[in-house]
Protein backbone atom coordinates (compact mmCIF):
# COMPACT_ATOMS: atom_id res chain seq x y z
CA UNK A 1 0.00 0.00 0.00
CA UNK A 2 2.84 2.38 0.83
CA UNK A 3 4.21 1.78 -2.65
CA UNK A 4 0.99 2.77 -4.32
CA UNK A 5 0.66 6.01 -2.38
CA UNK A 6 4.28 6.80 -3.14
CA UNK A 7 3.42 6.53 -6.81
CA UNK A 8 0.86 9.29 -6.43
CA UNK A 9 3.05 11.53 -4.31
CA UNK A 10 6.68 11.31 -5.40
CA UNK A 11 8.18 13.00 -2.32
CA UNK A 12 6.20 11.88 0.75
CA UNK A 13 6.84 13.81 3.93
CA UNK A 14 6.30 12.09 7.24
CA UNK A 15 2.98 13.84 7.69
CA UNK A 16 1.56 12.87 4.32
CA UNK A 17 2.87 9.34 4.70
CA UNK A 18 1.13 8.91 8.04
CA UNK A 19 -1.99 10.46 6.49
CA UNK A 20 -1.91 8.00 3.63
CA UNK A 21 -1.36 5.17 6.09
CA UNK A 22 -4.44 6.38 7.91
CA UNK A 23 -6.33 6.57 4.62
CA UNK A 24 -5.36 3.00 3.84
CA UNK A 25 -6.55 1.66 7.16
CA UNK A 26 -10.02 0.28 6.70
CA UNK A 27 -11.04 0.96 10.25
CA UNK A 28 -9.83 4.55 10.44
CA UNK A 29 -11.36 5.36 7.07
CA UNK A 30 -14.54 3.51 7.92
CA UNK A 31 -14.82 5.47 11.13
CA UNK A 32 -14.38 8.75 9.29
CA UNK A 33 -16.93 7.82 6.65
CA UNK A 34 -19.45 6.67 9.23
CA UNK A 35 -19.06 9.81 11.32
CA UNK A 36 -21.74 12.12 9.80
CA UNK A 37 -24.45 9.45 9.75
CA UNK A 38 -23.50 8.09 13.16
CA UNK A 39 -23.46 11.55 14.72
CA UNK A 40 -26.89 12.41 13.33
CA UNK A 41 -28.41 9.13 14.40
CA UNK A 42 -26.83 9.01 17.84
CA UNK A 43 -27.85 12.56 18.69
CA UNK A 44 -31.33 12.60 17.18
CA UNK A 45 -32.36 8.94 17.38
CA UNK A 46 -30.52 6.91 20.00
CA UNK A 47 -30.35 9.64 22.60
CA UNK A 48 -34.07 10.61 22.29
CA UNK A 49 -34.98 6.93 22.48
CA UNK A 50 -33.21 6.69 25.83
CA UNK A 51 -34.55 10.07 26.90
CA UNK A 52 -38.08 8.88 26.09
CA UNK A 53 -37.68 5.84 28.29
CA UNK A 54 -36.32 8.06 31.07
CA UNK A 55 -39.16 10.57 30.66
CA UNK A 56 -41.61 7.70 31.10
CA UNK A 57 -40.29 7.37 34.66
CA UNK A 58 -40.63 11.08 35.48
CA UNK A 59 -43.45 13.54 35.97
CA UNK A 60 -42.05 15.98 33.40
CA UNK A 61 -44.44 18.60 32.07
CA UNK A 62 -43.98 21.07 29.27
CA UNK A 63 -41.62 23.77 30.52
CA UNK A 64 -40.65 21.86 33.66
CA UNK A 65 -38.06 19.09 33.88
CA UNK A 66 -39.56 16.26 35.89
CA UNK A 67 -38.27 14.27 38.81
CA UNK A 68 -37.95 10.51 38.94
CA UNK A 69 -41.19 8.93 40.13
CA UNK A 70 -40.52 5.27 39.35
CA UNK A 71 -43.28 3.36 37.66
CA UNK A 72 -46.03 5.70 38.79
CA UNK A 73 -46.95 6.64 35.22
CA UNK A 74 -47.33 3.00 34.33
CA UNK A 75 -49.33 2.29 37.47
CA UNK A 76 -51.63 5.15 36.56
CA UNK A 77 -51.98 3.91 33.00
CA UNK A 78 -52.72 0.35 34.08
CA UNK A 79 -55.83 1.66 35.85
CA UNK A 80 -56.75 3.96 32.98
CA UNK A 81 -59.63 2.59 30.92
CA UNK A 82 -58.87 5.01 28.07
CA UNK A 83 -55.33 3.69 27.78
CA UNK A 84 -56.53 0.09 27.55
CA UNK A 85 -59.16 1.13 25.04
CA UNK A 86 -56.41 2.70 22.94
CA UNK A 87 -54.38 -0.53 23.12
CA UNK A 88 -57.44 -2.48 21.99
CA UNK A 89 -58.11 0.04 19.21
CA UNK A 90 -54.51 -0.10 18.05
CA UNK A 91 -54.55 -3.89 17.87
CA UNK A 92 -57.93 -3.95 16.12
CA UNK A 93 -56.80 -1.26 13.68
CA UNK A 94 -53.46 -2.94 12.96
CA UNK A 95 -54.75 -6.50 12.61
CA UNK A 96 -57.85 -5.81 10.52
CA UNK A 97 -56.17 -3.23 8.30
CA UNK A 98 -53.09 -5.41 7.77
CA UNK A 99 -55.05 -8.52 6.86
CA UNK A 100 -57.20 -6.64 4.36
CA UNK A 101 -54.23 -4.73 2.96
CA UNK A 102 -52.42 -8.01 2.45
CA UNK A 103 -55.37 -9.78 0.81
CA UNK A 104 -56.28 -6.89 -1.48
CA UNK A 105 -52.65 -5.99 -2.16
CA UNK A 106 -51.80 -9.55 -3.14
CA UNK A 107 -54.85 -9.71 -5.37
CA UNK A 108 -53.89 -6.45 -7.08
CA UNK A 109 -50.30 -7.67 -7.46
CA UNK A 110 -51.51 -10.88 -9.12
CA UNK A 111 -53.68 -8.84 -11.50
CA UNK A 112 -50.86 -6.45 -12.35
CA UNK A 113 -48.55 -9.41 -12.96
CA UNK A 114 -50.76 -10.52 -15.87
CA UNK A 115 -49.88 -9.53 -19.37
CA UNK A 116 -51.78 -6.24 -19.45
CA UNK A 117 -51.87 -3.43 -21.96
CA UNK A 118 -50.51 -0.13 -20.52
CA UNK A 119 -48.84 -2.11 -17.76
CA UNK A 120 -46.44 0.59 -16.57
CA UNK A 121 -49.23 3.16 -16.68
CA UNK A 122 -51.37 1.06 -14.36
CA UNK A 123 -48.44 0.45 -12.05
CA UNK A 124 -47.80 4.18 -11.88
CA UNK A 125 -51.35 5.26 -11.05
CA UNK A 126 -51.82 2.46 -8.54
CA UNK A 127 -48.95 3.89 -6.49
CA UNK A 128 -50.54 7.34 -6.25
CA UNK A 129 -52.29 6.92 -2.87
CA UNK A 130 -48.95 5.96 -1.36
CA UNK A 131 -47.04 8.90 -2.83
CA UNK A 132 -49.44 11.67 -1.86
CA UNK A 133 -48.97 13.10 1.65
CA UNK A 134 -51.16 11.10 4.03
CA UNK A 135 -52.53 14.16 5.75
CA UNK A 136 -53.71 15.63 2.47
CA UNK A 137 -55.40 12.46 1.26
CA UNK A 138 -56.89 12.06 4.74
CA UNK A 139 -58.42 15.51 4.35
CA UNK A 140 -60.06 14.25 1.14
CA UNK A 141 -61.39 11.28 3.11
CA UNK A 142 -62.69 13.65 5.76
CA UNK A 143 -64.76 15.34 3.09
CA UNK A 144 -65.85 11.96 1.66
CA UNK A 145 -66.97 10.97 5.19
CA UNK A 146 -68.72 14.28 5.88
CA UNK A 147 -71.88 13.69 7.90
CA UNK A 148 -74.02 15.93 5.71
CA UNK A 149 -72.48 16.01 2.25
CA UNK A 150 -70.83 12.61 2.07
CA UNK A 151 -70.59 11.45 -1.52
CA UNK A 152 -70.81 7.84 -0.33
CA UNK A 153 -74.10 8.44 1.45
CA UNK A 154 -75.40 10.26 -1.63
CA UNK A 155 -74.36 7.46 -3.98
CA UNK A 156 -75.89 4.74 -1.78
CA UNK A 157 -79.09 6.73 -1.42
CA UNK A 158 -79.30 7.28 -5.17
CA UNK A 159 -78.93 3.53 -5.65
CA UNK A 160 -81.68 3.03 -3.11
CA UNK A 161 -79.53 0.93 -0.78
CA UNK A 162 -79.98 3.15 2.29
CA UNK A 163 -82.68 5.65 3.19
CA UNK A 164 -80.80 8.01 5.51
CA UNK A 165 -77.29 9.44 5.57
CA UNK A 166 -74.58 7.36 7.21
CA UNK A 167 -72.91 9.06 10.18
CA UNK A 168 -69.43 7.91 9.21
CA UNK A 169 -67.27 9.55 11.85
CA UNK A 170 -69.82 10.25 14.57
CA UNK A 171 -70.65 6.70 15.59
CA UNK A 172 -68.01 4.47 17.29
CA UNK A 173 -68.47 1.42 15.05
CA UNK A 174 -68.73 3.43 11.84
CA UNK A 175 -65.78 5.61 12.82
CA UNK A 176 -63.55 2.57 13.39
CA UNK A 177 -64.59 1.04 10.07
CA UNK A 178 -64.06 4.37 8.29
CA UNK A 179 -60.53 4.97 9.55
CA UNK A 180 -59.59 1.36 8.82
CA UNK A 181 -60.97 1.72 5.28
CA UNK A 182 -58.95 4.90 4.74
CA UNK A 183 -55.83 3.17 6.05
CA UNK A 184 -56.36 0.23 3.70
CA UNK A 185 -56.83 2.59 0.77
CA UNK A 186 -53.49 4.17 1.53
CA UNK A 187 -51.68 0.89 2.23
CA UNK A 188 -52.74 -1.27 -0.73
CA UNK A 189 -50.31 0.31 -3.25
CA UNK A 190 -47.22 -0.37 -1.15
CA UNK A 191 -48.15 -4.01 -0.56
CA UNK A 192 -49.20 -4.52 -4.18
CA UNK A 193 -46.08 -3.03 -5.76
CA UNK A 194 -43.60 -4.80 -3.48
CA UNK A 195 -45.38 -8.14 -3.92
CA UNK A 196 -45.50 -7.49 -7.67
CA UNK A 197 -41.72 -7.14 -7.64
CA UNK A 198 -41.53 -10.44 -5.78
CA UNK A 199 -43.84 -12.09 -8.30
CA UNK A 200 -41.66 -10.98 -11.17
CA UNK A 201 -38.65 -12.78 -9.78
CA UNK A 202 -40.48 -16.13 -10.03
CA UNK A 203 -39.33 -17.88 -13.21
CA UNK A 204 -42.10 -18.56 -15.71
CA UNK A 205 -40.65 -22.02 -16.34
CA UNK A 206 -41.81 -23.20 -12.91
CA UNK A 207 -45.40 -22.46 -13.87
CA UNK A 208 -44.97 -24.21 -17.20
CA UNK A 209 -43.48 -27.27 -15.52
CA UNK A 210 -46.27 -27.38 -12.95
CA UNK A 211 -48.90 -26.98 -15.66
CA UNK A 212 -47.41 -29.90 -17.58
CA UNK A 213 -47.66 -31.92 -14.38
CA UNK A 214 -51.39 -31.16 -14.39
CA UNK A 215 -51.50 -28.53 -11.64
CA UNK A 216 -54.72 -26.55 -11.39
CA UNK A 217 -54.80 -22.77 -11.20
CA UNK A 218 -55.20 -22.93 -7.41
CA UNK A 219 -52.37 -25.45 -7.10
CA UNK A 220 -50.12 -23.17 -9.16
CA UNK A 221 -50.80 -20.39 -6.71
CA UNK A 222 -50.60 -22.55 -3.60
CA UNK A 223 -47.50 -24.59 -4.44
CA UNK A 224 -45.48 -22.31 -6.73
CA UNK A 225 -46.38 -18.66 -6.15
CA UNK A 226 -46.97 -18.65 -2.42
CA UNK A 227 -43.84 -20.53 -1.23
CA UNK A 228 -41.57 -18.44 -3.45
CA UNK A 229 -43.27 -15.25 -2.34
CA UNK A 230 -43.19 -16.01 1.40
CA UNK A 231 -39.93 -14.17 2.21
CA UNK A 232 -41.01 -10.93 0.56
CA UNK A 233 -44.49 -11.26 2.09
CA UNK A 234 -42.89 -11.54 5.54
CA UNK A 235 -40.84 -8.39 5.06
CA UNK A 236 -43.55 -6.33 3.39
CA UNK A 237 -46.11 -7.20 6.01
CA UNK A 238 -43.72 -6.46 8.86
CA UNK A 239 -43.18 -2.98 7.49
CA UNK A 240 -46.90 -2.60 6.93
CA UNK A 241 -47.72 -3.76 10.46
CA UNK A 242 -45.09 -1.48 11.99
CA UNK A 243 -46.34 1.59 10.18
CA UNK A 244 -49.99 0.79 10.82
CA UNK A 245 -49.34 0.17 14.50
CA UNK A 246 -47.63 3.54 14.94
CA UNK A 247 -50.06 5.43 12.72
CA UNK A 248 -50.91 8.92 13.82
CA UNK A 249 -51.78 11.14 10.89
CA UNK A 250 -54.96 9.50 9.63
CA UNK A 251 -56.59 9.43 13.05
CA UNK A 252 -55.45 12.93 13.89
CA UNK A 253 -57.08 14.28 10.73
CA UNK A 254 -60.25 12.21 10.66
CA UNK A 255 -61.39 11.83 14.27
CA UNK A 256 -58.71 13.02 16.74
CA UNK A 257 -59.50 9.85 18.66
CA UNK A 258 -63.24 10.44 18.90
CA UNK A 259 -66.10 9.67 19.15
CA UNK A 260 -65.75 8.84 22.88
CA UNK A 261 -62.16 7.64 22.33
CA UNK A 262 -63.37 4.85 20.04
CA UNK A 263 -60.61 5.49 17.50
CA UNK A 264 -57.80 6.63 19.81
CA UNK A 265 -54.60 4.79 18.92
CA UNK A 266 -51.64 4.66 21.28
CA UNK A 267 -49.78 7.23 19.18
CA UNK A 268 -52.66 9.71 19.18
CA UNK A 269 -53.29 9.21 22.89
CA UNK A 270 -49.59 9.79 23.54
CA UNK A 271 -49.76 13.04 21.56
CA UNK A 272 -52.94 14.15 23.28
CA UNK A 273 -51.63 13.53 26.79
CA UNK A 274 -48.00 14.47 26.14
CA UNK A 275 -48.16 17.51 23.88
CA UNK A 276 -51.73 18.88 23.96
CA UNK A 277 -52.16 18.06 27.66
CA UNK A 278 -48.58 18.94 28.55
CA UNK A 279 -47.99 15.72 30.56
CA UNK A 280 -44.71 14.81 28.83
CA UNK A 281 -43.96 11.97 31.28
CA UNK A 282 -47.28 10.25 30.80
CA UNK A 283 -47.17 10.72 27.02
CA UNK A 284 -43.67 9.22 26.92
CA UNK A 285 -44.86 6.26 29.01
CA UNK A 286 -47.62 5.56 26.47
CA UNK A 287 -45.08 5.74 23.65
CA UNK A 288 -42.73 3.38 25.53
CA UNK A 289 -45.63 0.95 25.97
CA UNK A 290 -45.65 0.57 22.17
CA UNK A 291 -42.07 -0.73 22.13
CA UNK A 292 -42.81 -4.36 23.17
CA UNK A 293 -45.29 -4.68 20.30
CA UNK A 294 -42.77 -3.22 17.86
CA UNK A 295 -40.05 -5.57 19.10
CA UNK A 296 -42.36 -8.53 18.50
CA UNK A 297 -42.90 -7.36 14.92
CA UNK A 298 -39.17 -6.83 14.39
CA UNK A 299 -38.36 -10.31 15.67
CA UNK A 300 -40.92 -11.63 13.22
CA UNK A 301 -39.14 -9.71 10.46
CA UNK A 302 -35.80 -11.10 11.60
CA UNK A 303 -37.01 -14.66 11.28
CA UNK A 304 -38.49 -13.82 7.91
CA UNK A 305 -35.04 -12.73 6.77
CA UNK A 306 -33.46 -15.85 8.18
CA UNK A 307 -35.89 -17.96 6.22
CA UNK A 308 -34.98 -16.07 3.09
CA UNK A 309 -31.31 -16.77 3.61
CA UNK A 310 -32.02 -20.41 4.14
CA UNK A 311 -33.99 -20.58 0.93
CA UNK A 312 -31.15 -19.04 -1.01
CA UNK A 313 -28.67 -21.48 0.44
CA UNK A 314 -27.08 -19.23 3.05
CA UNK A 315 -24.90 -16.14 2.79
CA UNK A 316 -26.20 -12.72 1.91
Amino acid sequence: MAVSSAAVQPRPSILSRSLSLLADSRNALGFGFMLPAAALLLVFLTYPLGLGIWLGFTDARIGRPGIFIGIENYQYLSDDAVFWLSVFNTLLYTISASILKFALGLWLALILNQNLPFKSFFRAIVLLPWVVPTVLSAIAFWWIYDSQFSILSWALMEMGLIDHRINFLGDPVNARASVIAANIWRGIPFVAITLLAGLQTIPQSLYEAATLDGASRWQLFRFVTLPLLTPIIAITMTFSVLFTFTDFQLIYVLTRGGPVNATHLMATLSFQRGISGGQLGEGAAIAVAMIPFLLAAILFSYFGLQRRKWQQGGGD
Partner: protein
Amino acid sequence: MATIKKTKRPELDEGGMGYLQSLPRRVVTVYLPLLVFVIVLLFPFYWMTITAIKPNLEMTDYANFNPLWVVHPTFEHIRYLLFDTSYPGWLLNTIIISTAATFLSLLAAVFAAYAIERLRFSGARQVGLAIFLAYLVPPSILFIPLSVMVFNLGLYDTPFALILTYPTFLVPFCTWLLMGYFRSIPFELEECALIDGASRWQILTKIVLPLSVPGLISAGIFAFTLSWNEFIYALTFIQSSENKTVPVGVLTELVRSDVYEWGALMAGALIGSLPVVVLYSFFVEHYVSSMTGAVKE
Protein backbone atom coordinates in the same frame (compact mmCIF):
# COMPACT_ATOMS: atom_id res chain seq x y z
CA MET B 1 -26.69 -12.80 -30.00
CA ALA B 2 -29.60 -10.45 -30.47
CA THR B 3 -32.09 -13.30 -30.57
CA ILE B 4 -30.72 -14.85 -27.39
CA LYS B 5 -31.09 -11.53 -25.61
CA LYS B 6 -34.63 -11.16 -26.84
CA THR B 7 -35.84 -14.47 -25.51
CA LYS B 8 -34.36 -13.63 -22.14
CA ARG B 9 -36.40 -10.47 -21.78
CA PRO B 10 -39.02 -11.05 -19.10
CA GLU B 11 -41.86 -9.13 -20.77
CA LEU B 12 -41.83 -11.52 -23.72
CA ASP B 13 -41.72 -14.44 -21.35
CA GLU B 14 -44.58 -13.33 -19.16
CA GLY B 15 -47.30 -13.96 -21.69
CA GLY B 16 -45.99 -17.53 -21.86
CA MET B 17 -49.17 -19.33 -20.95
CA GLY B 18 -51.55 -16.48 -21.64
CA TYR B 19 -53.05 -18.31 -24.60
CA LEU B 20 -54.54 -20.80 -22.16
CA GLN B 21 -56.96 -18.13 -20.95
CA SER B 22 -60.03 -17.25 -22.95
CA LEU B 23 -61.05 -13.63 -23.36
CA PRO B 24 -64.29 -13.75 -21.29
CA ARG B 25 -62.41 -15.41 -18.46
CA ARG B 26 -59.76 -12.70 -18.57
CA VAL B 27 -62.44 -10.01 -18.46
CA VAL B 28 -63.92 -11.46 -15.27
CA THR B 29 -60.68 -12.40 -13.50
CA VAL B 30 -58.43 -9.56 -14.61
CA TYR B 31 -59.99 -6.51 -16.25
CA LEU B 32 -63.09 -6.15 -14.07
CA PRO B 33 -61.27 -6.33 -10.70
CA LEU B 34 -58.55 -4.05 -12.06
CA LEU B 35 -61.18 -1.52 -13.07
CA VAL B 36 -62.70 -1.60 -9.58
CA PHE B 37 -59.27 -1.21 -7.95
CA VAL B 38 -58.36 1.72 -10.17
CA ILE B 39 -61.68 3.48 -9.55
CA VAL B 40 -61.47 3.04 -5.78
CA LEU B 41 -57.80 4.08 -5.61
CA LEU B 42 -58.29 7.14 -7.79
CA PHE B 43 -61.72 8.33 -6.68
CA PRO B 44 -60.49 10.46 -3.72
CA PHE B 45 -58.21 12.37 -6.10
CA TYR B 46 -61.08 12.99 -8.49
CA TRP B 47 -63.26 14.11 -5.62
CA MET B 48 -60.51 16.39 -4.34
CA THR B 49 -60.06 17.98 -7.75
CA ILE B 50 -63.75 18.47 -8.47
CA THR B 51 -64.38 19.97 -5.03
CA ALA B 52 -61.49 22.39 -5.48
CA ILE B 53 -63.10 23.95 -8.55
CA LYS B 54 -66.76 23.81 -7.45
CA PRO B 55 -68.66 26.93 -6.46
CA ASN B 56 -69.99 26.75 -2.88
CA LEU B 57 -73.58 26.69 -4.13
CA GLU B 58 -73.08 23.49 -6.12
CA MET B 59 -71.03 21.92 -3.36
CA THR B 60 -73.91 21.81 -0.91
CA ASP B 61 -76.92 21.47 -3.19
CA TYR B 62 -77.08 17.82 -4.16
CA ALA B 63 -80.75 18.04 -5.11
CA ASN B 64 -80.20 20.30 -8.10
CA PHE B 65 -76.63 19.51 -9.07
CA ASN B 66 -75.07 16.12 -9.58
CA PRO B 67 -72.19 16.15 -7.05
CA LEU B 68 -69.97 14.09 -9.34
CA TRP B 69 -69.80 16.86 -11.91
CA VAL B 70 -69.23 20.58 -11.86
CA VAL B 71 -71.43 22.91 -13.92
CA HIS B 72 -69.73 26.27 -13.39
CA PRO B 73 -66.08 25.62 -12.54
CA THR B 74 -64.47 28.40 -10.53
CA PHE B 75 -60.94 29.27 -9.50
CA GLU B 76 -62.21 31.22 -6.50
CA HIS B 77 -61.00 28.64 -3.94
CA ILE B 78 -57.54 28.46 -5.47
CA ARG B 79 -57.34 32.25 -5.68
CA TYR B 80 -58.40 32.52 -2.04
CA LEU B 81 -55.83 29.92 -1.05
CA LEU B 82 -52.94 31.53 -2.88
CA PHE B 83 -53.65 35.18 -2.11
CA ASP B 84 -55.65 35.37 1.11
CA THR B 85 -53.92 32.69 3.22
CA SER B 86 -50.31 31.89 4.18
CA TYR B 87 -50.34 28.91 1.82
CA PRO B 88 -47.50 30.12 -0.49
CA GLY B 89 -45.34 30.60 2.59
CA TRP B 90 -46.03 27.04 3.77
CA LEU B 91 -45.19 25.76 0.32
CA LEU B 92 -41.88 27.61 0.41
CA ASN B 93 -41.11 26.34 3.93
CA THR B 94 -41.83 22.77 2.88
CA ILE B 95 -39.60 23.07 -0.19
CA ILE B 96 -36.70 24.55 1.82
CA ILE B 97 -36.98 22.06 4.68
CA SER B 98 -37.39 19.01 2.42
CA THR B 99 -34.49 20.01 0.19
CA ALA B 100 -32.14 20.73 3.08
CA ALA B 101 -33.06 17.54 4.95
CA THR B 102 -32.68 15.50 1.74
CA PHE B 103 -29.19 16.87 1.00
CA LEU B 104 -28.02 16.44 4.56
CA SER B 105 -29.30 12.86 4.68
CA LEU B 106 -27.93 11.90 1.26
CA LEU B 107 -24.50 13.23 2.13
CA ALA B 108 -24.36 11.26 5.37
CA ALA B 109 -25.90 8.18 3.75
CA VAL B 110 -23.47 8.01 0.81
CA PHE B 111 -20.45 7.88 3.12
CA ALA B 112 -22.07 5.48 5.53
CA ALA B 113 -23.29 3.14 2.80
CA TYR B 114 -19.89 3.12 1.09
CA ALA B 115 -18.10 2.43 4.35
CA ILE B 116 -20.42 -0.40 5.34
CA GLU B 117 -20.64 -2.00 1.94
CA ARG B 118 -17.13 -1.52 0.53
CA LEU B 119 -14.63 -0.54 3.22
CA ARG B 120 -15.87 -3.48 5.29
CA PHE B 121 -14.29 -2.12 8.46
CA SER B 122 -14.51 -4.41 11.46
CA GLY B 123 -18.07 -4.45 12.72
CA ALA B 124 -19.49 -3.26 9.39
CA ARG B 125 -22.16 -5.95 9.39
CA GLN B 126 -23.31 -5.01 12.86
CA VAL B 127 -23.42 -1.34 11.92
CA GLY B 128 -25.48 -2.26 8.84
CA LEU B 129 -27.93 -4.14 11.03
CA ALA B 130 -28.08 -1.22 13.48
CA ILE B 131 -28.93 1.12 10.60
CA PHE B 132 -31.70 -1.21 9.53
CA LEU B 133 -33.08 -1.29 13.08
CA ALA B 134 -32.84 2.51 13.24
CA TYR B 135 -35.18 2.65 10.26
CA LEU B 136 -37.72 0.64 12.23
CA VAL B 137 -37.87 3.17 15.08
CA PRO B 138 -41.06 5.11 14.35
CA PRO B 139 -41.44 8.89 14.79
CA SER B 140 -44.50 8.20 16.98
CA ILE B 141 -42.29 7.11 19.87
CA LEU B 142 -39.61 9.75 19.32
CA PHE B 143 -41.60 12.95 19.06
CA ILE B 144 -42.00 13.58 22.80
CA PRO B 145 -38.31 13.28 23.79
CA LEU B 146 -37.33 15.06 20.58
CA SER B 147 -39.63 17.94 21.42
CA VAL B 148 -37.86 18.27 24.78
CA MET B 149 -34.48 18.26 23.00
CA VAL B 150 -35.60 20.71 20.33
CA PHE B 151 -36.83 23.06 23.02
CA ASN B 152 -33.65 22.83 25.07
CA LEU B 153 -31.49 23.40 21.99
CA GLY B 154 -33.44 26.56 21.22
CA LEU B 155 -34.61 25.18 17.87
CA TYR B 156 -38.32 25.22 18.72
CA ASP B 157 -40.42 26.87 16.01
CA THR B 158 -37.51 27.15 13.56
CA PRO B 159 -36.98 25.23 10.30
CA PHE B 160 -33.80 23.74 11.78
CA ALA B 161 -35.89 21.71 14.20
CA LEU B 162 -37.23 19.80 11.20
CA ILE B 163 -34.09 19.84 9.05
CA LEU B 164 -32.14 18.17 11.85
CA THR B 165 -34.80 15.67 12.94
CA TYR B 166 -35.96 14.43 9.52
CA PRO B 167 -32.61 12.66 8.98
CA THR B 168 -33.58 10.28 11.80
CA PHE B 169 -35.75 8.42 9.34
CA LEU B 170 -34.09 9.57 6.10
CA VAL B 171 -30.50 8.51 6.85
CA PRO B 172 -31.31 4.87 7.69
CA PHE B 173 -33.57 4.60 4.68
CA CYS B 174 -31.13 6.19 2.19
CA THR B 175 -28.19 4.24 3.61
CA TRP B 176 -30.03 0.97 3.25
CA LEU B 177 -31.10 1.81 -0.30
CA LEU B 178 -27.61 2.94 -1.35
CA MET B 179 -25.98 -0.12 0.24
CA GLY B 180 -28.06 -2.25 -2.09
CA TYR B 181 -27.03 -0.07 -4.99
CA PHE B 182 -23.30 -0.07 -4.19
CA ARG B 183 -23.41 -3.83 -3.90
CA SER B 184 -24.37 -4.00 -7.59
CA ILE B 185 -21.22 -2.14 -8.67
CA PRO B 186 -18.51 -4.69 -9.55
CA PHE B 187 -15.63 -4.94 -7.10
CA GLU B 188 -13.18 -5.29 -10.03
CA LEU B 189 -13.61 -1.62 -10.96
CA GLU B 190 -12.44 -0.57 -7.53
CA GLU B 191 -9.59 -3.07 -7.52
CA CYS B 192 -8.32 -1.70 -10.82
CA ALA B 193 -8.44 1.82 -9.45
CA LEU B 194 -6.63 0.75 -6.28
CA ILE B 195 -3.88 -0.84 -8.34
CA ASP B 196 -3.59 2.36 -10.37
CA GLY B 197 -2.94 4.18 -7.12
CA ALA B 198 -6.28 5.86 -6.55
CA SER B 199 -7.17 6.74 -2.99
CA ARG B 200 -10.45 5.65 -1.42
CA TRP B 201 -11.72 9.19 -1.81
CA GLN B 202 -10.91 9.16 -5.53
CA ILE B 203 -12.60 5.80 -5.91
CA LEU B 204 -15.72 7.08 -4.24
CA THR B 205 -15.96 10.35 -6.16
CA LYS B 206 -14.69 9.24 -9.56
CA ILE B 207 -15.94 5.68 -9.86
CA VAL B 208 -18.64 4.72 -7.41
CA LEU B 209 -20.69 7.92 -7.34
CA PRO B 210 -20.88 8.45 -11.12
CA LEU B 211 -21.99 4.83 -11.49
CA SER B 212 -24.64 5.15 -8.81
CA VAL B 213 -26.37 8.28 -10.10
CA PRO B 214 -29.66 6.37 -10.62
CA GLY B 215 -29.48 5.09 -7.05
CA LEU B 216 -28.73 8.59 -5.77
CA ILE B 217 -31.67 9.98 -7.72
CA SER B 218 -34.11 7.46 -6.32
CA ALA B 219 -32.78 7.84 -2.78
CA GLY B 220 -33.11 11.61 -3.22
CA ILE B 221 -36.69 11.36 -4.47
CA PHE B 222 -37.62 9.01 -1.66
CA ALA B 223 -36.07 11.29 0.93
CA PHE B 224 -37.71 14.37 -0.54
CA THR B 225 -41.13 12.69 -0.65
CA LEU B 226 -40.80 11.39 2.91
CA SER B 227 -39.85 14.84 4.23
CA TRP B 228 -42.62 16.47 2.22
CA ASN B 229 -45.15 14.06 3.72
CA GLU B 230 -43.87 14.22 7.30
CA PHE B 231 -46.48 15.37 9.76
CA ILE B 232 -45.99 14.55 13.43
CA TYR B 233 -42.65 16.36 13.92
CA ALA B 234 -43.85 19.36 11.97
CA LEU B 235 -47.02 19.46 14.06
CA THR B 236 -45.12 19.21 17.34
CA PHE B 237 -42.06 21.40 16.74
CA ILE B 238 -43.59 24.32 14.85
CA GLN B 239 -46.02 26.75 16.37
CA SER B 240 -46.22 30.01 14.45
CA SER B 241 -48.32 30.06 11.30
CA GLU B 242 -45.59 31.45 9.04
CA ASN B 243 -43.18 28.59 9.85
CA LYS B 244 -45.59 25.73 9.18
CA THR B 245 -45.28 23.17 6.42
CA VAL B 246 -48.06 22.41 3.94
CA PRO B 247 -49.63 19.34 5.63
CA VAL B 248 -49.69 21.03 9.04
CA GLY B 249 -50.73 24.43 7.71
CA VAL B 250 -53.63 23.07 5.68
CA LEU B 251 -54.94 21.07 8.61
CA THR B 252 -54.48 23.57 11.43
CA GLU B 253 -55.00 26.93 9.74
CA LEU B 254 -57.56 26.28 7.01
CA VAL B 255 -59.91 24.34 9.27
CA ARG B 256 -61.88 26.74 11.38
CA SER B 257 -64.09 25.39 14.08
CA ASP B 258 -67.47 26.44 12.70
CA VAL B 259 -67.26 26.66 8.91
CA TYR B 260 -65.23 24.20 6.88
CA GLU B 261 -64.04 25.78 3.68
CA TRP B 262 -64.04 22.54 1.78
CA GLY B 263 -63.17 24.13 -1.56
CA ALA B 264 -60.05 25.80 -0.21
CA LEU B 265 -59.14 22.71 1.84
CA MET B 266 -59.33 20.48 -1.23
CA ALA B 267 -57.41 22.99 -3.32
CA GLY B 268 -54.75 23.08 -0.60
CA ALA B 269 -54.55 19.28 -0.48
CA LEU B 270 -54.36 19.07 -4.27
CA ILE B 271 -51.65 21.70 -4.71
CA GLY B 272 -49.71 20.25 -1.78
CA SER B 273 -49.76 16.82 -3.44
CA LEU B 274 -48.78 18.01 -6.91
CA PRO B 275 -45.01 18.48 -6.39
CA VAL B 276 -44.45 14.94 -5.14
CA VAL B 277 -46.75 13.48 -7.79
CA VAL B 278 -44.93 15.34 -10.57
CA LEU B 279 -41.52 14.42 -9.18
CA TYR B 280 -42.53 10.83 -8.88
CA SER B 281 -44.15 10.59 -12.30
CA PHE B 282 -40.85 11.59 -13.93
CA PHE B 283 -38.94 8.89 -12.13
CA VAL B 284 -41.60 6.26 -11.65
CA GLU B 285 -39.42 3.46 -12.99
CA HIS B 286 -36.58 4.30 -10.61
CA TYR B 287 -39.11 4.56 -7.87
CA VAL B 288 -40.68 1.17 -8.40
CA SER B 289 -37.41 -0.68 -8.98
CA SER B 290 -35.58 0.90 -6.09
CA MET B 291 -38.48 0.46 -3.72
CA THR B 292 -38.57 -3.20 -4.52
CA GLY B 293 -34.78 -3.33 -4.23
CA ALA B 294 -34.86 -1.68 -0.84
CA VAL B 295 -37.49 -4.04 0.44
CA LYS B 296 -35.85 -7.11 -0.95
CA GLU B 297 -32.73 -6.45 1.05
